[in-house]
Structures are given as C-alpha cells and as structure tokens.
C-alpha cells in the first residue's frame, strides 16, 4: 500500500487540491450563492432574505438543508458499503440514535449543544462497538441480518410505552427547542450555511480517509478480504475503524436532523430508512463519495417532485425507479460517468445506434 509516486511539495499539493477538486469547489460556490439567486428570482430584497422572512428562498433552503443531512448520512453509508464492502442493514440505527439523543438531551435534560454533539459522537462509537461484537464471526449476508436485527430492536424500543416521556412512542419526539442561534425557523440561513460547511467538511475528511493507507486497506478488504488477511493485515481493526467513522458521521447527521426537523419520528430508525440510503448511494454510484452527494440530492428532489405530482402513488414510482436502476444502471450516475467517460456526443451516438442498429461515424 505504499505510495510510489514522488511525494509532492506542499505548494504543489495545495494547487493540486484546487485542480483535483475543481468541480466540488464550484459546487460549493454555487450552493453558497443559491439562497441569493433564488431570492433574486423571487424578487425578494436581500435585507428581507437576511432577516429570514418567509418566501420561496426560505422554503428551498429548508429542502436544501434536508438534502445536506441526507448527504452526510449517505456519505457515511457509502464509506461502510461502498469503500469497505460491509453490507449493514442497521445503519438507520446510527441516524436514529443521533436524532433521538439530541432531541432528548435538549428537551428533557437541557444540555447545551457542544456536549450533546460530543455525546452523539460517543454514542456512534458505542453503537459501532455493538455491531463489531459480531464482526469477526459473521460475514456477508449474515452480518446484514444481524445488523438488521439489532437495529430493529432499537426501532422497537424507541417506540415502547416505557420511554414515552422521553421519546414520545409512535408519534415521535415533539417540542424540541434547538438553541436560539441555530433555530431552523428564525435563523434558517445560518443553518443552511452550517449544513453546507458540514457536508463538505465531512466529504473532505472521508475523501482523505479513503486516500490514506487505512482507506486503501479498506478498499482491499472490499475487493478480497482473504487476500488482505494474507498480506498481513488484521482486517477486523480496519473494518472496525470504518464502522466507527461511519457511525460517528451518521450519528452527527442524525443530530442535525434532530435540530432541524420539528418532529423526530421513529421512522428514521426503521429499516426503511436504511433502504432509502441504499437507494441514494445506488442512484449516485456505490463506492464513489461524490455519488453519495449526488444520490442524496437526486433522491430528495425526486421524492419531493413525485409527491407533488402523484401524491400517494409516489412511493410506487420510487420503487420502480429503484428496480430500473438496479437492472439497467447498477453503477449509478457517477459510476457510469466514470466508467465510460461518457461524452454527451458519444451518448447521443449510442442512443441512435441502439435504435437503428447501425454504426454511426463519430
């Protein structure tokens, strides 16, 4: 796993960073300007936007914050499934733990935000350790089943009568008042920028992790675990590291959800929420961190528009999209893009070829 290329100097690596991440940096810039652009189109004055007055821009800021939260959550799952190759069906538990801990600590115990975030991160590690009890023993499908079972227990416990004062049973946790400087209603624009920063900080941390020697071993485990073991790596520790990092990130995403959404529903801890994140990274492309971002955005926007247009039937359509993706586009948006190096023109030529059966000249 040694890096054979000559190590670049500091200056070079800095400019390389800008060159290599040009797309991402432009996206950050555009997203940073997005509230202002939307306000401009809506004819809302800047002062009103900064005062968080209701309007189209504020509504779409809310949607974007949801996308940011989902993107962090999808990034954490991509690290687990796409990079390390661990199929876990209990990932929603991490998200749920983060959200519920934040809500309960704010509402019932009155903690301030920073200790809560620390607690949430610790909770993510603890949950990862619970998963890791079975990690060295079971592999593949059985690991998926065990994690599904553990997460299902959490889902059931969170809805139980005994915890009704804290977690609110089936209805969900209501009446959480986030700290004033982060209130999603009166300070939404601030929340938006914090969310934006959080997504890309997490993105660059995870990218750094994947490029590190530890990350390389994780990829090796995904490709062939026996071989990684034979090379002398104790794969358990690497899988545990990925699981912990993923757990912390997912729990923090959950904490953001707990701060942002007015009701924390138990549904976010159910297996459906794991399947939703699976769909997100499948849409974007498994194993590509960019894919998790794009997949989360596509998923949320798609379900938003579909619900607007079709109402109750939207779930069926999302299911159909899911099946069609698995059948015809298994590498997702980013994966297909990277795999074939599609140029737009080439895509048209292929499309015409597919219909006519004739080889076109490029």
């Amino acid at each position: 796993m040694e890096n054979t290329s000559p190590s670049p100097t500091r200056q070079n690596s800095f400019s390389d960073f800008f060159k290599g991440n040009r797309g991402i940096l432009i996206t950050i810039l555009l997203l940073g300007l997005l509230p202002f652009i939307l306000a401009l189109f809506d004819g809302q004055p800047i002062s009103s936007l900064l005062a968080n007055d209701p309007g189209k821009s504020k509504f779409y800021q809310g949607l974007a914050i949801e996308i940011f939260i989902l993107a962090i959550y999808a990034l954490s799952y991509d690290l687990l499934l796409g990079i390390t190759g661990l199929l876990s069906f209990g990932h929603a538990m991490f998200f749920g733990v983060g959200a519920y801990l934040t809500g309960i600590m704010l509402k019932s115990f009155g903690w301030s935000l920073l200790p809560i975030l620390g607690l949430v991160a610790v909770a993510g590690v603890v949950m990862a350790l619970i998963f890791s009890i079975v990690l060295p023993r079971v592999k593949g499908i059985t690991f998926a089943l065990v994690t599904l079972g553990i997460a299902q227990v959490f889902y059931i416990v969170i809805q139980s009568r005994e915890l009704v004062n804290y977690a609110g049973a089936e209805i969900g946790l209501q009446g959480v008042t986030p700290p004033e400087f982060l209130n999603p209603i009166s300070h939404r624009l601030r929340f938006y920028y914090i969310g934006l920063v959080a997504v890309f900080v997490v993105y660059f941390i995870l990218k750094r992790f994947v490029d590190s020697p530890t990350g390389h071993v994780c990829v090796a485990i995904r490709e062939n675990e026996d071989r990684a073991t034979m090379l002398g790596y104790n794969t358990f520790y690497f899988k545990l590291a990925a699981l912990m990092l993923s757990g912390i990130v997912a729990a923090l995403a959950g904490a953001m959800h707990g701060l942002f959404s007015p009701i924390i529903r138990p549904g976010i801890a159910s297996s459906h929420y794991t399947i939703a994140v699976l769909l997100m990274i499948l849409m974007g492309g498994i194993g590509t961190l960019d894919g998790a971002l794009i997949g989360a955005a596509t998923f949320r926007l798609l379900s938003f528009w579909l619900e607007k247009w079709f109402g109750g039937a939207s779930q069926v359509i999302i299911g159909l999209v899911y099946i069609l993706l698995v059948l015809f586009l298994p590498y997702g948006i980013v994966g297909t893009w990277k795999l074939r190096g599609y140029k737009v023109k080439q895509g048209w030529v292929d499309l015409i070829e597919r219909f006519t059966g004739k080889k076109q000249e490029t």
Partner: protein
Amino acid sequence: MNTLISSFRRNRTFWITLLVLIIIFALGVRGLVDQEAEGGERYKNVVITILRGLSTGSIIFLVASGFSIIFGLMSVLNMAHGAIFMVGAYVGWTVAVRPDTVVDATTPIALLISGFLLVPVWDQIIKKIKISPALSRLWPWLGLILTLLVLGFLLPKYPITSWDVGSYEISPVNFAFAASQGQVNVPEPEQFQGISPLIGLGGILLGSILAGITVTGFVASRRPTTAGRAPQPGALRKSLINFIIVALLGLLLYIFNTPISNFLYTLDSTWLFIVAILVAVATGAGLGILIESTLIRPIYESHMYVLMLTLGVNAIIIEVVRSIWGAPEFTMHRPSVFAGTGEGCPAESFGDLLQYKCSTIRILGGRVRTYNEIFITILGIVVLIAVWLLLQRTRLGMIVRAGVQDSEMVKALGINVQRIFTIVFSLGVGLAAMGGVIGAPSTGLTTTLGDSLLINMLVALAIGGLTSYPGAAAGALIVGLLQQFIIKYGQIGINIPFVEEAFKPSPPLVPAMTVLLMVVILLVLPQGLFGRKE
C-alpha cells in the same frame, strides 16, 4: 455408542448449545407450572404456551422453509418474501369475504396471461420474416406503445365489483366486520359502462396478444444471431392449445360470472377457506414466476443487486396492497369448522370438538383456541413432512438438494437449471402466500404484516442455519416458543430471587429477546445450529 461419542466430540459446540437451550426451555416450563392448582391443571399454562409457540413457529416455518430453499439453491435473498406472505393473506381474505371480486378479476388476468402463451409461435413467425435490423429494433417500441394504449384504455373500464377504501360503508373494514358477524350481503355486479362487452373483452385479448408480440420482438432484437433455438416438435401446437384453453376459461368465467359468484357466496365458509388457500397459493406462485423470470433472472449472478432489487419489489408490493385494500387494519373470520360457540362448547374432548365444531377446546382446565393453536400447528407439521418428502423422494427434490450442495455441478450435468430455479422460486413463494392465508384469521390483516414476519423469519433462519431445511424448522420452533414464553411471562411475571416485585417483560422485549438469542447463537456457532461449515 462410539459413533455417538465421536459425533459429540466433533460438534461439541452444537451439543452444548442444544443442551443450554433445553435447560432454558425446562426452566421456562418449570416457572409456568402452577404450584397451587390440583392434578393436571397445574400444567395448564405450560400446555397453552407451548401450543401457542408451536403455532407461531408453524407460521414462521411456512415462510422460512421456502426462503431457505430459494437461498440455498439460487443464492437469492428474497426480501419480498414477507410482502408475498401479506399478499397471500389479503387475497385469501378477498376470496373468503368477497368471492365475486375474485371471479370478476380472474377474467382479465386470464386474458392477459393467454397472450403470453403464444410467444413461441410469434418467435417462429418473426424468424421467418426478413426485415432490416433497424426496423427490427424499432417495431417492438411501436408495439409497446400500442399495447400500452389499448390496455391503458380498456383495463380501467373493466367492471370489477369491489370495495371503496374511501367510504366506510363499502370499505374492506366494514365487509370484514359483516363477515365476522355471519352476514352475507351480495353486492350488485357491475357492468361495462360506455362500451359493449364484446369490444372490452376482445380489446383486452388483443392487447395481451400485442404484449406477447412486443415481448417476443424485444427478445429477438437482443439475440446475437438470428438462429435461436430450434422448436421442439409439437411445442407450437401445445402453446396454441394452451392459449385457447386459458382464453376460453377467461371468457367462460365472464359469461357465467353471476352464477359462479352466487354459488361461491352460498358455500360454507370452510369450503370457501379451502378455495382461498388454493387461490392464494396460485397468486403467490404466479407472482413468483413473474418476479423470477423478469427481474431476478437477468442479474441473479450478482447477489447484492438481487438483494436490493427484491427490497424494491417489497416496497412496491406493500404500496400496491395499501392502495387496493387500504391502510386500516381489519380481520378475517375463521372457517365455520373452528367457529362454533353454541351448545357443547368449549369442547371437553376431541370427539366433542368434531361433533360441535367448537372454537375452543378445554385442555387440562385451560381453554385453547382450535384454529389458532391446534389447526395451524397441525398444518405446519403436515407441510414440514410434505416438503421433506418432496425434497427427499422426488427427482425435483434430488436436483434441489444437489443444487444446494454444488449448483455448478448440476449445471454441468445438463439439467435445465433455469427451469428448476423458476419452479423452486414459485413453490417457495407459494408456500409463503399459503402461510399468509392460514395466519390471517389469527393475526388480522395489516400492511406491516410482511415486515414483522420477515424479521422473525430472518432471525429464525440465522439461528437454524441459512440454507438448511431442518435448520429452518428448528429456528422457527425456537423463535415461536421463545416469543410465546416471554409473552406469557409478561403476564404473570418472573420471580427473581432477592427482588421483591416480579419482573414483567414488556411486549417490546419479545423481538428484542429473539434477536439477542440470535446474536448469542451466531457468536457461538457462526453458521447457525444446522448450517454447513464453510
């Protein structure tokens, strides 16, 4: 003796685990013995709890056995299994409560199937016609559009006498309530509105034939060479005869619609229940064939994608069921053999039971429900033996067992694995649907039925061993018994030494305990109790 000792030595962990489980079971039984009662009545709670455990285990087993055989043979984790269990329950309810709807719906379904039976004929005809490759790629798309237009116009117009989820008077909830009270009010059958029946039926038949041609066109345009497979002698005539039979069946059902549904309404609910089981199994198996041949077959080599695909199918089936039958929960009445409450009930002996058709029977002073506890258990055992005989004594079972051991070798021996896969998949899924109907009178019908069962089933299979048939039975038994014992202890409480109050495990602890047991067993025996060592 020597073999016993050596087998003990080889599988030390297994035997110790089994011993521990038996000790836990014995302790659980001992705690339920009522020390204050007299004679046989002491064991009242024990018997009831064990019977309930057996019946819960039977339902889990009906679903788990199919799942484990499918997984063993094809390495397909069919996450839609729970959803098909649910479909079985809902279809069974419809047959038992609203047979006229089923009769109505059978005609268009039969007509739609009939068109696809002609695919071999079209295949031969298309091969004879020489057209340019460009056109041969284009026309199936035109066919698809035409098919969608015809069917999309006609199918919504087809009159199916059914219910309306929106209004309570004619909602499934109300029909279920009326049926449980023993009332039968036959609704007016609906007729074709706006178009003549001849155009409607003929149009659907035409649409299904068009669909068959379209599918053939797509398959043919994807085939690398024009050669294809040579038809077997008589195959064409056979498919033509099949087409005529199925289409005629559909038309006859349309003509004799009212007499048939009136006859079904006059049937005793026991006979109707048997019909319901048959229809549900047929629906499940049909869905199985559809899912296997269109969705799983193209990608079944990549297991993770199949897993995700079946998850998607699961979500779609649940949503479709919710849109047809509505989200509110309702019940299914028990067949009349198990519903008697009048004179002579609860029965004192099995002779009385058969004579008065009681809904409950008194065993050792406790009342046991005949349907929930006894019938389901007996049926579970019957299916256990039947599937075991199928696996051990038939050619199909032999191939399946060989395929579980080494599917590459079976392929190499020249067996048509694809057909075996389809058969096994539809059989396994059909068993799940059967479990759905049989479980429905005791569990009620909700759209979350499948999910909760899927979890239980996966836990049972992980305990027993994923690909092993005895493992599925053992796991289902363990999960069922454990659940019912915990529920019972939740009612009477556990006396823990040195603690004043009795500890009462609350209902959420039931699934939690089974999962805990699964995790412990997987830690000791990663391949499950009866699984093969990798």
